[in-house]
């Protein structure tokens, strides 16, 4: 039975010349789980918004064609463009990429937050209570019931956002990259919850960058490119296409193996960064060896470090850690203390007890601005960092403030923009860019400062395959230059591929500290820390079995 029909849908945002959605015609059956893939800017989020009616009701712009809910026959179906969102929200639910912006901002407990939509639509109290209990159980957030939604970690907040939509019992659930900010375990939980919903007959449309997950869970996948549908077929057919890289998509490793053969891909000989003997990493090692010969490799020494935001809830407890100039990934569940640790290293927070030494000097006597010459830090949310009206000015801000000459600052800024693939956008207002581009502006603005240490907080968020490849190249380049790269990540494939050392944090303590090969084969450790094995490791294990 048809649930959703697109008829020659076209849409253009206000003040834009290019169509964001171009002549889309397809149908989705009731109970289907449809994945939405494509490079950044392909139109995935716009399509999600169109099903919900935000396009055109909220975003306005030029709209043509039709989306019909409930069937192909116009007499029986609801036409999205002619139905107010307040009506549509009874049939369609949308979960945003950023859960922070999905919260109502007017409720002080998770319970009340979930109830918000039901109250607005006049559902009776007893029914509200029944639905909230059921959805909290389903998403395992019963323990968060009385917490303030704004106090939750990203993963917890996303589950609350999902609950607040599911509680409306929509027939169609649209998810716009809902797991991009979640740790692997939380992301898997969301996928499992969504699969449970599918079993109950709900239709699901999910935009996602995690191809492995879509391949595992979806019935069909839409491949979008520049607002047009390139293909709409089963995961097997979609991921077997030879031209996926033309659309900024890297198929799941399992499909690559099936298609090209394991030996050809050398998947079974696949080694993590730490033990790979490529020309690149040899060059990096040579460079590091040369540098290490005239100053010690130790960058940070963390001694008995404890920190808490409120006395009763310690975040880090008696942490001891040495960080050298190997590329290092810090992994762990949302709320494990990863961002707190790097903020302490950067001097943005002061330890409750213990000390941090940077190159054998206690950082407690230095201001953050003083440390900026040596330690660069890219924030998770680029909007916290951007404030100039031109990309070039934004990228030059850091270099100028650490005392670089203007000409040199400009040269460094242009180089940094070229590295992150933003050449040509120097005069554009950063706020006019897409999130993935703003994230790259934030990276470039720290890269241009040419610091000895670069800390990246979730650099892969919002990045598609091409963006991730750019970041990989950047990390290898910095490694080759002998710089220390420290990154917080939830993407284990990226960690396995790019980082020599992996530090596993859980509940403010170091649970594991070794190369990727060791960490990702320790299943007990991964389970405790809520992590999962990278795809390459999983595939290798399958063969061994």
């Amino acid at each position, binding site marked *: 039975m048809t649930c959703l029909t697109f008829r020659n849908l076209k849409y253009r945002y206000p003040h834009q010349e290019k169509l964001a959605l171009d002549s889309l015609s397809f149908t989705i059956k009731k109970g289907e789980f449809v994945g939405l893939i494509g490079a950044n800017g392909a139109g995935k989020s716009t399509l999600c918004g169109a099903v919900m009616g935000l396009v055109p009701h*909220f975003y306005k712009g030029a709209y043509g064609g039709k989306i019909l809910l409930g069937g192909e026959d116009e007499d029986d179906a609801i036409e999205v463009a002619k139905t107010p969102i307040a009506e549509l*929200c009874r049939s369609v639910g949308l979960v945003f990429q950023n859960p922070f912006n999905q919260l109502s901002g007017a409720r002080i407990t998770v319970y009340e937050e979930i109830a*918000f939509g039901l109250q607005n639509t*006049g559902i009776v109290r007893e029914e509200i209570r029944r639905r909230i209990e059921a959805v909290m159980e389903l998403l395992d957030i019963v323990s968060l019931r009385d917490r303030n939604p704004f106090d939750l970690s990203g993963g917890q907040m996303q589950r609350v956002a999902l609950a607040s939509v599911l509680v409306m019992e929509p027939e169609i659930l649209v998810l716009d990259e809902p797991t991009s900010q979640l740790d692997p375990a939380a992301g898997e939980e969301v996928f499992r919850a969504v699969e449970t919903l599918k079993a109950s007959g709900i239709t699901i449309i999910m935009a996602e960058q995690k191809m492995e997950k879509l391949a595992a869970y979806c019935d069909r996948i839409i491949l979008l490119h520049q607002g047009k549908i390139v293909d709409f077929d089963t995961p097997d057919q979609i991921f077997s296409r030879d031209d996926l890289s033309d659309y900024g998509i890297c198929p799941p490793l399992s499909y690559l193996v099936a298609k090209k053969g394991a030996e050809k891909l050398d998947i079974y000989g696949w080694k993590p960064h730490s033990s790979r003997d490529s020309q690149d990493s040899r060059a990096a090692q040579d460079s590091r060896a040369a540098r290490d010969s005239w100053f010690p490799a130790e960058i940070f020494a963390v001694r008995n470090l404890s920190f808490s935001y409120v006395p009763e809830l310690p975040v880090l407890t008696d942490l001891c850690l040495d960080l050298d100039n190997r590329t290092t990934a810090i992994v762990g569940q949302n709320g494990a203390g990863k961002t707190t640790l790097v903020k302490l290293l950067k001097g943005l927070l002061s330890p409750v007890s213990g000390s941090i030494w940077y190159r054998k000097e206690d950082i407690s006597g230095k201001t953050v601005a003083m440390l900026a010459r040596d330690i660069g830090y890219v924030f998770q949310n680029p909007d916290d*960092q951007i*404030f100039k009206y031109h990309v070039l000015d934004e990228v030059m801000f*850091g270099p100028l403030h650490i005392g670089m000459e203007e000409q040199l600052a400009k040269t460094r800024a242009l180089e940094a923009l070229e590295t992150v693939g933003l050449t040509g956008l120097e005069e554009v207002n950063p706020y006019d860019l897409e999130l993935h581009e703003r994230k790259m502006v934030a990276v470039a603005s720290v890269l241009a400062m040419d610091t000895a240490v670069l800390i990246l907080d979730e650099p892969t968020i919002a990045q598609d395959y091409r963006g991730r490849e750019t970041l990989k190249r950047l990390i290898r380049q910095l490694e080759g230059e002998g710089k220390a790269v420290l990154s917080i990540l939830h993407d284990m494939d990226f960690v396995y591929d790019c980082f020599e050392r992996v530090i596993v944090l859980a509940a403010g303590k170091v649970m594991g500290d070794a190369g990727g090969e060791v960490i990702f084969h320790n299943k007990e450790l991964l389970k405790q820390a809520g992590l999962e094995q990278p795809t390459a490791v999983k595939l290798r294990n399958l063969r061994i079995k």
Partner: protein
Amino acid sequence: MKTISLYVDKKTYLTGLHPFTKLFYVIAAITAPLIAGKLSGFFLMIGISLILLISGGLLRKALPLVVFTFTILLTIFLIQGLFYQNNVTPLLSLGQLVFYREGLLYAARIGLNILNMLFSFALFVLSTDPFIFVEELERAGLPKKAGYIIVSVFQIIPQMAAAKNTITDAQRSRGLETEGRLLTRARAFIPLLSPVVTSALINTRERSAALEIRGFEAKTRKTFLSERSFSRSDRLGFFLMLLLLSVAVLWRNFQ
């Protein structure tokens, strides 16, 4: 998250009273001495408010408000005591300065009025959850949007403060010195304005989309999570306050 609400959830009889009962207390406490027209009326109401604050365990939280208004009260006594237009009878002199009885009495009236308002409002604000109060107002007919604006302030202002701190951190970490002398800190304030305002606007736009998809514009009548009826205590409170207002009116008429 820190909230800007002053509400103290002590689970006492005061927090258990209906918000409208406490609101009516504020109205009665302010108007009764004004109707009665006697200084003793102010003393009586201040006394009642203090007893209620003490019995509700809220006095310590109310005292900073008194300290805050101390400068204003002192200024009133100085100005009125020295310069009140009807000053005739000198009461005390400090060197060249002569304080008059009429001026000081007038200042006492204003001062007591301020203190009375302060204590009664303190009682209301410290013992009433603003979210429950707005919910009751909405139940009584306040438009949903107006209610949202009021309660969102309690969440959004702390969020903006947190955003300001994060943005400051981002700028410090790119070499902008924000610590040290006043001039340094003042200079660091300017680049802060644009991202704070811009991020607030971006968040507001996205949040309004989030509200839309959760039925905020629905024409149906909103439902409420809890039923709050007037208890016996509330009815007794209303009765006592009506009695108080009646006594004030009688006192005024029979003087």
